[in-house]
């Protein structure tokens, strides 16, 4: 049997806050299989983003274990973690996090270049076309709207064909229509590439897209609901007119 894609065991993260210590995550256990689409829900401060950061090796746990494809990562060096992200993990952030001095195309190009993909330019152009920005590749982030920036970020997240995609409130900074469009693209690309997707959101409608919903409260898993409750087709408008 293949090992789970992501495995968290007794994961705890504490942060100093003034004189006290704040427990952000409290002995969390979670296993995510390849190809799963998991939504992480919870109110502000429940530890959603920290969970995501720990899965990506952006942050280090106070205690507990994180395994990616069976390999523990909590003791890896900064370099080891960077290589892990390069090969296995893509990101989409609420605030887009595009490099402002790179054009849209260069932003998309970067992960593919880092990984040494055979023809990174073709890959970048393909993805830009997939998100409907084929003709905006030479624009800088500041010349794009919020929705367009997030589409570039989506294209970038898929550029290196990562087995895992982590999305942190990807529609949080966008209006409803644009947000739906982004989600549509995200789920569409995910099913095309067979990516494991972990999506953090506080919007139940967005979470309804996922096959599994993890509810966090005060750093603990309150509920873990499996079984698809919605599909992309039912949750959002059909992907009509989106170039694929």
């Amino acid at each position: 049997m293949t090992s789970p894609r992501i495995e968290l065991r007794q994961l705890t993260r504490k942060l100093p806050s003034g004189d006290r210590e704040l427990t952000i995550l409290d002995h969390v256990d979670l296993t995510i299989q390849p190809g799963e689409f998991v939504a992480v829900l919870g109110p502000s401060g429940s530890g959603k983003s920290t969970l995501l950061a720990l899965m990506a090796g952006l942050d280090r746990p106070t205690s507990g274990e994180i395994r990616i494809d069976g390999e523990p990562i909590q003791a890896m060096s900064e370099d080891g973690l960077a290589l892990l992200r390069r090969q296995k993990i893509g990101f989409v952030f609420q605030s887009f996090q595009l490099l402002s001095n790179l054009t849209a195309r260069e932003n998309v190009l970067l992960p593919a270049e880092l990984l040494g993909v055979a023809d990174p330019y073709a890959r970048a152009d393909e993805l830009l076309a997939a998100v409907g920005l084929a003709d905006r590749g030479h624009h800088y982030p500041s010349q794009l709207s919020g929705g367009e920036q997030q589409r570039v970020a989506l294209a970038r997240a898929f550029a290196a064909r990562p087995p895992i995609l982590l999305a942190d409130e990807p529609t949080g900074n966008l209006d409803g229509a644009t947000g739906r469009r982004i989600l549509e693209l995200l789920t569409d690309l995910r099913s095309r590439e067979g990516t494991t997707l972990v999506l953090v959101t506080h919007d139940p409608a967005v979470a309804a897209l996922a096959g599994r919903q993890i509810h966090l409260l005060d750093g603990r898993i309150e509920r873990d609901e499996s079984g698809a409750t919605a599909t992309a087709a039912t949750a959002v408008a059909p992907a009509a007119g989106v170039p694929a």
Partner: protein
Amino acid sequence: MTLGFHLRMLARESRGSRGRLAFFVVCLAVGVAAVVAVAGLSASLRDGIRREARQLLAADLAVRGNQPLPPETLTAIAAIPGARRTDVKETVTVAAAPARGGQPGPSQLVELKVVDGVYPFYGKLDLRPRRPLRELLTPGTTVVASELLPRLGLKVGDSLLIGGQPFRVAGTVLAEPDRVSVSFTLGPRAFLTGAGFARTHLEEQGSRVGYRALVKLPDQLSGTELDAIAERLRDALPAGDFFRVETYRQAQPALQQNISRVERFLGLVALLSLFVGGIGVAQSVRAWLAGRLDAIAILKCLGMRPREIFPLYLGQTVLLGLAGSVLGILAGAAIQLVLPRLFPDLIPGELVRPWQPAALLRGLGLGVGVAMLFSLPPLSAVLRVPPARVLRRDAEPLPRHRWVTAVTGLALGLGIWGMAAFQSDSALLGAQFTGGVALVTAALAGAAFLVARGVRRLPRDASPQWARPWLRHGLAALARPGAGAGSAIVALGLGVLVVLGMSLVERRVLSQLDKELPANAPSAFLIDVQPDQWQGVEALLRQQGGRGVESVPVVMARLAAIDGVRTEDLVAAREKEAGKDSGEGNGRDRGERGERGGGGRGGDRRWGLTREQRLTYMRELPKDNKIVAGALWSDPARPEVSLEKGFAEEIGAHLGSTLTFNVQGVPLDLEVTSLRTVDWGTFGINFFLVVEPGVLESAPQQRLAVARLPRGAEQRVQDLLAARYPNVTFLRIREILEKVLKVLRRISLGIRFLGGFTVVAGIAILAGAVSAGSARRGREVALLKTLGMTRRGVAATFAVEYALVGLVAGAIGAVGGAVLAWGVVTRGFKIPWALDPWILTAALAASILLTVIAGLAASLRALERRPIEVLRAE
């Protein structure tokens, strides 16, 4: 990942930063300009010397000494196939216009050059009329420097008295190939033939004459053949080091060495401004990276390793370093072109070639090196950016690796030392420089820290009467975290230190030499007075109002042996010793032996041993002499000599030593029975060697005299002496001091000029710090204005802050400069220390003023913004 990817990333990453890093480029360019200007000018001078080496020697080879060349040498020269020889003698004497209407004509000290044969073999002797020297010069004529004639009221064709003999002025000389325009001269040139010189009898009357044989060798001779001939001639010279053989291939070794020495020193001063620029570089990199933290976090998030990101930013600094260096090189070249026009005395403009590849490379290398080195500490922050920053702004920085701090610190220290060693061509000097810079920097940084802390502790709420809002705010601004005041204080302080230190040294030395000439010091020296002339000369001096007229007999002699060891052997032994302990800079080749001003003690010792010694005899020592060992004239059995202590050390003699002199052919043994110290500052007549009376009275001798003449009487006395005692050389102390001062002023000007770069770099840094914080300042201004402060009030607030920066930097720089000057004045020049408080005050005021102006200028944009613009953008 390929190199191509790295280069692409480098180009992409640089896009957003180009404008913002202008200060980086400016700071670096200022320092590089200073380095390139120094290196370029000295390389130009040396290049010029090499290029015109034959002209500067006026021959392929020359043999010189301060006694007539021995016949065996002349025979050896004659034996070289195809060689041609010209004999040259040089001395200093007084030339005068003939008497007019019973009054003696005006007179002038001249440098006499006696030429027999073809002169010069190479280079151009620029004469008017444009005819060969041989045609103009006969035993009855002279050719003189054009500036001499108006001084004596003569014109070409008139008669000129040299050594009392009339010579018709047959022409004027405008330029001589072997007389370098930057060197020290006692007076204008006059040419005579050998027969003409013989008429003056100056040689027999004891004038100090330099002898030189210029040799022209066949054209097809190779360099190695020339060296071999020079070596054969050296072997043919009598032992004892009284002569030296030079070839054009050595190209003025003494002059080159002097240039190297000045270059090393100025090179370090220039390097200091580059290092100050480096502080600015570090500061701009820090400000730049502060704006790049998000981008770095994203790159880490996308899977770039810290060690891949670090070179990205280091690469940026290298690119910027290249840009700054190229700009600096252009500025340095421009300085080289402009400087000779501004200061024609300083550098002969015709020699300057501003595009010296070595100098340009030096500027480029040091510029990029400093850019990388000083960027290292701020760049190491790249390693500490937490990738989690993409999710949480307040993510904790990654732990600081101790070895990173250690490695960057070590690299900085080693790098500074390496560059200083490279600039000064000496590991030791480099280490001393690095230590000094570290010490001063630590003092300045410590003071900046203390001031910030002190200001932070001032009671703010108590609001005493004096604390107007602008004063309180200004003071508080200095203490604000990240105000950038620290690096500005260090940079400006270093600048003040160099500029003030050098002006203090200059002022001290000049005033010591000039104003503080003792009131009873003589104003003139008379040399080569014949014993039978003394009575008349003395009467003349007194008649003309001369006071303090004194004279002593002088007997010329050579030191033949010390304690039975022949001088030649002592020289050989010391040469070996000097070769052993000469670290760097002392590696002089054989051609330069026996010349003073060579390299350090070894050179002094040889010169002390082999030069012509002047002995005097007297019963009682002058008041400015003090016996420090032994007793004067204490041995009734043997003839005694008293030595000046320093001279005794120089030649290696001590109490009880027996010095054997050759007094114009007669051997004479003298026992050292006392050692003295002499206060040379009195300018009285003093000798290294004083002999017991009763020993030298019958030896051939002249008299040396001093007199204090009324101001303005010197010229008349010189004219009278020239008319009646033409062999007497009259040296005006004030005039000679003026010439020495002029040389000193030139060097000091160069140092202050370069020190000015340090100040400019410091001001650039301050302006950079101010404008890097302009966003913060804009907000501050907006808030202050919203709260009702006028624009003038805001400006005053800022002015207080900058004034305080200027005050601290100026105060510490001034103290440092005073300490530096004290060291140089008391140790280097060995003159007493005195401090003019006014110059310190002026330096402090200038430092404050410059800082306030630069700071306010850099804040103008922030001051002009309307509050609503800033607050709306929030």
